[in-house]
């Protein structure tokens, strides 16, 4: 693993909401091509961890580096941290493709407009080029014919696939998925997992919070089990699912059928 | 001054003193009066209609310079604005429906509903003499509304300045329904001071000019000339 470049490096990350410490010192490095699944019970801090990586939540302590470039932080005067360079954050964010649990497609734009929005208005790609690439991506997730539909007219599964295309459109260094299927009806889960599985096969760097154990096992090369704000256990899927060591992990795997 | 003098008129029509026609031209006795004093005092005057509600603030905030609006001079008002000498003072009359017979006396109006325009000397008078004698005094924002209600039978009598009443009685509406029941007994303390031009406090220069002009047009006959067009009696009063 070590010969590959670092894609995301998180060191000693802490996050407090008021008195509640949600993350209690997490360090994790994702190398290029890694597919890391983050599992854990509800409230264990998985989403918070993912959101700290692109500064949607500002960490209380610790540091995050994207492709070797540490995000500059400063004290915010209230005993917490704050990014010191907003432009840097925006630049780094513009190459991290985030896919949300609830899709968060922009409802006032058609699917293709959603997909080209960030390339055109953030990265400055020409519109023609963005559309061409966007259409290719939509074709890839099987949504080409929905290109001019508005999100509200699509099923949940289609919306999530569109969201994935939107995230891919910025040619991201890494993709961040926060429970991409848990807002979907059971019948629609498959189509989205299929698309993500394909991405994994291409060796795209991905961090993936999920409740779908079977899927995590098949797709990830590294599993991180979060419990109460710390990494309780991590390792390759065979080890985590086949030979869990910690009691908590055993119980967790057992309970999630 | 290069600036023309802005003369405030109540935007609501008050014939025969001042009302606009469809072309926006103002006409009436007060319009001619205003023109006469302006000509006399060599003032360049323009008519500025302002709704009655806003006419005093318009004066105090210098949006207009004087008010020609049939404003009665009262001590209470003198605390806030200034007045010129009176330029007319008319008897006060009471009208009522033709079908009912009564006099314009406290006894005659007992138990009747009598309409007056709010905050006028007529209201004070009606309250003092008729209200205390068992009449109901009803306040109206404009004279027109009181007249209308009389015609509609919602009032038994209207007390107002005889001229306004006369104009109403000559209109189609008034002709059919109503007649003059007589003028009220004078009480100079209430009805006294007459109507003056409203002026900003401290604007003595203008006040002097206006007073002088009023005296002059009274003296040189202009006043009587244009008054005759409207009235067949002496509107200046005693």
């Amino acid at each position, binding site marked *: 693993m070590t010969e590959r470049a670092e894609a995301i490096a998180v060191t000693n990350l802490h996050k407090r909401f008021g008195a509640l410490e949600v993350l209690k010192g997490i360090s994790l490095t994702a190398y290029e091509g890694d597919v890391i699944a983050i599992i854990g019970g509800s409230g264990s801090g998985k989403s918070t961890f993912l959101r700290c990586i692109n500064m949607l939540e500002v960490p209380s302590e610790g540091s995050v580096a994207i492709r070797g470039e540490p995000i500059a932080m400063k004290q915010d005067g209230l005993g917490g941290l704050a990014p010191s360079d907003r432009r840097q954050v925006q630049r780094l964010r513009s190459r991290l493709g985030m896919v949300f649990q609830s899709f968060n497609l922009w*409802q006032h734009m058609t699917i293709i407009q959603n997909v080209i929005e960030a390339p055109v208005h953030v990265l400055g790609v020409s519109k023609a080029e963005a559309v061409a690439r966007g259409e290719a991506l939509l074709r890839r997730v099987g949504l080409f014919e929905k290109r001019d539909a508005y*999100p*509200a007219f699509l099923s949940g599964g289609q919306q999530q696939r569109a969201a994935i295309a939107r995230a891919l459109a910025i040619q991201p260094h890494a993709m961040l998925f926060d429970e991409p299927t848990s807002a979907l009806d059971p019948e629609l889960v498959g189509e989205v997992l299929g698309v993500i599985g394909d991405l994994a096969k291409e060796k795209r760097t991905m961090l993936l919070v999920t409740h779908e154990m079977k899927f995590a096992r098949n797709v990830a090369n590294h599993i991180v089990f979060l419990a109460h704000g710390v990494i309780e256990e991590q390792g390759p899927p065979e080890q985590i699912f086949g030979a869990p060591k910690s009691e908590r992990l055993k119980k967790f795997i057992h309970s999630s059928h | 001054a290069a600036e023309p003098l802005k003369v405030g008129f109540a935007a609501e029509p008050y014939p025969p003193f001042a009302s606009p026609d469809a072309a926006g031209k103002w006409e009436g006795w007060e319009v001619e009066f205003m023109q006469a004093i302006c000509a006399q005092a060599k003032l360049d005057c323009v008519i500025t209609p302002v709704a009655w*509600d806003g006419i*005093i*603030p318009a004066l*105090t*905030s210098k949006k207009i310079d004087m008010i020609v609006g049939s404003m009665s001079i*009262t001590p*209470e*008002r003198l*605390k*806030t*604005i200034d007045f010129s000498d009176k330029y007319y003072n008319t008897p006060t009359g009471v009208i009522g429906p033709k079908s009912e017979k009564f006099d314009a006396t406290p006894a005659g109006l007992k138990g009747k509903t009598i309409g007056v325009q*709010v*905050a*006028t000397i007529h209201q004070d008078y009606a309250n003092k003499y008729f209200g205390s004698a068992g009449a109901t005094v*009803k*306040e*109206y*924002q404009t004279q027109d*509304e009181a007249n*209308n*209600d009389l*015609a*509609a*039978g*919602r009032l038994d009598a209207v007390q107002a300045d005889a001229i306004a009443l006369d104009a109403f009685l000559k209109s189609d509406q008034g002709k059919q329904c109503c007649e003059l029941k007589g003028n009220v007994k004078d009480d100079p303390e209430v009805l006294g001071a007459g109507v003056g031009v409203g002026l900003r406090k401290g604007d003595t220069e203008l006040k002097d000019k206006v007073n002088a002009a009023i005296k002059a047009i009274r003296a040189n006959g202009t006043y009587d000339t244009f008054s005759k067009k409207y009235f067949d009696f002496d509107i200046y009063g005693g």
Partner: protein
Amino acid sequence: MSAGEKAAEPDSLVELPPEESTVEATALTRLPSGRGFLKPHRVVLMAIAASIVFCAVWFLRWDWLPDYAGRLAHGVGVTLLMLFGTCLLGFVLAVPIGLVQVTGPWPLKLLAKGFCTIIRGTPLLLQLWLLYYGLGSLFPQFPAIRQSFLWPVLREAWPYGVAALTMSFAAYEGEVMRGAFAGVPKGELEAARAYGMSRWKVFRRIWLPRAVHRALPTLNGETVLQLKSTPLVATITVIDVYAVVSKIRQVTYLTYEPLLLLALIYLCLTALLVLAFRYFENKIPTRSA
């Protein structure tokens, strides 16, 4: 706008906006709450406010106040009477107006819609005049009416004021109730039916209380608007607090003082209304973020 309102929007992918966000805009429920009220900047603001009040008291003329205190109090009474009377009557009308627009047969629907459009599309002042000077002056031409026992009432001004304000409130509130009725989740009504409630019972026990509760913030705003509309009755000789103040202005020719007093009176009345409504709203808590 209370966020809790929207928590239970029906099954749609996008959140639809509240039916009547305008009127939401008039809802004054969000006044600052007591707790954590005193912050340093607030103390400064209040000091500034106090000095303004002091200036107003000191530099303006208030000598007329004692003479009119009684009439002002009476005027406030008339205003409140008009307000509550017309709001209650108007609400009673608004419920069927809103309801038939949601479920009624089309002739009724059309009628209600037309009523709302016409009333909302023309100024209240015009309606008031049409009623009072128009309709009201037709009545006396019929001796039958003039001789009837109704005449003493019909020749007064207040019935016309009440009628005009009631219709206005009914039209605006009818629209609100339409939205509120339509906004009650279908499932809750269905649950009521599934438990064997008759239509009337569904309406009385579930639909109406639920709709009224949804409409409360808006209702609050509408009531404040109605409070601000009551001065119009002064133009037809009903002596409310506004008429008293205009009279003071006419008698004294003072510009600002009576108006400032009037603004203060309306602020106080509004505050009272808001507190009252807040009390009702808090009876059934909604979850807000």
